[in-house]
């Protein structure tokens, strides 16, 4: 575990024990509870750009279960269905699909509620829902790729349900969420429009469920970490305080990530170097590795900032060979051959992951996952996704009807074409930089707290780039960062998920209290 900021102040325990006591006294559900309500939603939801729903339907399925954490049974209710986001004049904008897990019998004012968003843009919130901190999760065994399908769907002893109610939200044009006529899905396919409609959804969900007094948390992953800062600013502007923001595997500034654009990088890849070192070390290719990954990454981070960054900027200007000693240091840190550094000194993730090991492709999302070129796992040039996605896709098709009681003739869409026509412009720039959104939210609400989590082997949103981006807010900003072994979906790592859970509990305790 790496912590680069002082621990959050005031580790105040929320009334978790009181919540648990109240829950236990209700008598737990067992999945076969008699008041569960299954629901068949006859609507046909489309995730196409021009699609537009004529008749929204807010009827939900309701199921009851219990999860035992630390010897205490927590009875909870799972609610799946749609809720309409309304604009300021109460006109319908979009029918948003969500699955909410709420502990039974908790006092609303003391009980946090957390809204989760995956990214893309165009990705449904299936990864966070089925893989992370919900009361049940899929077993993947990553970075191994040996877990057979179907992935087991098990009680999640690392669930956050002991700390917060959990609402997993699909953005418009993903999952089963569709714009309502006269709007189309395309209406909400932009940085600002997307955050605006999700603000309206969050506000309405809180109002409809009697939760306007609850501590509010927002949890984003990947593009979700671009979405959530904008959403946070919009909620704070609207007068709705946000207690805490959790950013997992972050892209805060599309202009600073050297690999998110097509073609060779045009900005320094210094933010990626420590992740390359972590991956090289994982394969025992980094001769500079000492066996202490945290210490090694601290060394590489310093080298990245002090030496590699100015070298990379110079190389981008003139493509001149760098001194042999600089190339040798990079080879020792990462294991990537000198000739590859000579050819592409400002190292993008695609060059790195295709050349670290001969005839082998490494995952973008998790560099620890590898596949021989031409193998089945390499079929999509992204072995970590090729391994995990079929298991998640198969699971959502059974979990929704069988476990959550929600049936629809529509297809739950994991990944739509939203990104092809997404309006990335934001704050006067062609590509979003959401650090100013966090700054604006903090100026409106100085008690807002922000937690960054991520995987040291994630090659698409590298942890050091997050450190560099958020450092712009200044050292006094109420920000904590924790990075662990793992990939982009860091929670899939069975060693790192419990560590993240503990960090989340401490974060919620520091951020949930009265102001």
């Amino acid at each position, binding site marked *: 575990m790496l912590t680069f900021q002082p621990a959050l102040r005031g580790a105040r325990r929320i009334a978790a024990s009181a919540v648990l006591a109240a829950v236990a006294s209700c008598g737990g559900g067992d999945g076969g509870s008699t008041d569960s309500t299954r629901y068949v939603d006859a609507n046909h939801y489309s995730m196409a750009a021009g699609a537009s729903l004529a008749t929204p339907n807010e009827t939900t399925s309701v199921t009851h279960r219990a999860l035992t954490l630390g010897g205490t049974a927590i009875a909870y209710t799972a609610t799946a269905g749609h809720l309409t986001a309304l604009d*300021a004049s109460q006109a319908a904008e979009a029918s948003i699909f969500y699955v909410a897990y709420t502990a039974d019998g908790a006092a609303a004012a003391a009980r946090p509620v957390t809204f989760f968003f995956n990214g*893309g843009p*165009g*990705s449904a919130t299936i990864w966070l829902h089925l893989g992370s901190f919900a009361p049940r999760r899929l077993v993947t065994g990553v970075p191994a790729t040996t877990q057979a399908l179907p992935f087991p769907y098990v009680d999640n002893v690392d669930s956050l349900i002991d700390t917060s109610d959990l609402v997993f939200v699909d953005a418009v044009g993903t999952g089963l969420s569709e714009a309502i006529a006269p709007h189309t899905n395309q209406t909400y396919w932009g940085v600002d429009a997307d955050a605006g409609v999700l603000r309206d959804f969050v506000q309405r969900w809180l109002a409809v469920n009697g939760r306007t007094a609850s501590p509010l948390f927002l949890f984003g992953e990947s*593009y979700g970490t671009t979405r959530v800062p904008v959403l946070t600013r919009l909620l704070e*502007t*609207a*007068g709705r305080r946000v207690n805490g923001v959790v950013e997992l595997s972050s892209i805060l500034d*599309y*202009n*600073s*990530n050297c690999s*998110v*654009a*097509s073609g060779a990088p*045009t900005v320094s890849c210094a933010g990626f170097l420590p992740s390359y070192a972590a991956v090289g070390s994982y394969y025992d290719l980094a001769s500079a590795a000492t066996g202490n990954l945290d210490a090694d990454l601290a060394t590489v981070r310093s080298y990245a900032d002090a030496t590699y960054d100015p070298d990379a900027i110079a190389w981008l200007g003139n493509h001149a*060979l760098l001194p042999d000693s600089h190339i040798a240091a990079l080879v020792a840190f990462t294991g990537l051959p*000198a*000739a*590859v550094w*000579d*050819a*592409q000194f400002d190292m993008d993730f695609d060059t790195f992951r*295709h*050349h670290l090991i001969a005839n082998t492709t490494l995952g973008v999302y998790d560099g620890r996952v590898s596949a021989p070129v031409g193998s089945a796992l*390499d*079929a*999509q*040039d*992204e072995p970590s996704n*090729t391994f995990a*996605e079929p298991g998640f896709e198969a699971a959502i098709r059974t979990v929704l009807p069988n476990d959550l009681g929600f049936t629809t003739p529509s297809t739950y869409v994991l*990944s739509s074409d939203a*990104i*092809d026509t*997404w309006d*990335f*412009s934001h*704050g006067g*720039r*062609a*590509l979003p*930089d959401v*650090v*100013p*959104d966090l*700054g*604006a939210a*903090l*100026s*409106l609400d*100085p008690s807002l707290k922000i937690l960054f989590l991520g995987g040291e082997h994630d090659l*698409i*949103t590298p942890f050091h780039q997050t450190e560099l*981006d958020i450092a*712009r*807010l*200044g050292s*006094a*900003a109420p920000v904590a960062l924790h990075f662990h072994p793992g990939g982009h979906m860091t929670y899939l790592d069975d060693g790192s998920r419990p560590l993240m859970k503990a960090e989340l509990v401490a974060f919620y305790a520091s951020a949930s209290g009265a102001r």
Partner: protein
Amino acid sequence: MRTVLIVSTIVSLLAAATVARATPHLDPGKPPASAQQAAQAETRTRRASVGATLDSDAERHLRASFEAADTAHHGTLSREEAQAGGFGWIANHFDAIDTQHMGRVSFDDVKRYLNLHRSGASTK
């Protein structure tokens, strides 16, 4: 020696590029080409903002929300206009912002209040 290695590596890089496989939508994925081109034109002249420049970028968002709420273009908002226009934060802090008890606040009034209440969490 290194020249030879470079040539052979470039060949191998090109070879890798020709192995066309159907890459899935990545997350975060690559923005549309037009947005990438516009961003590249910008980044030649702009760097990531810090300090006062970042404060100014943050303020731009708040000013845009203020102007969106000010549908009558008065340059000021009443408590009710702020609430109805989506700037509920101003309505919630109205009396503290409206130090002159005018019943209307300007964006400069909002900035003055924010500066008075900056904490260590500020972007300075």
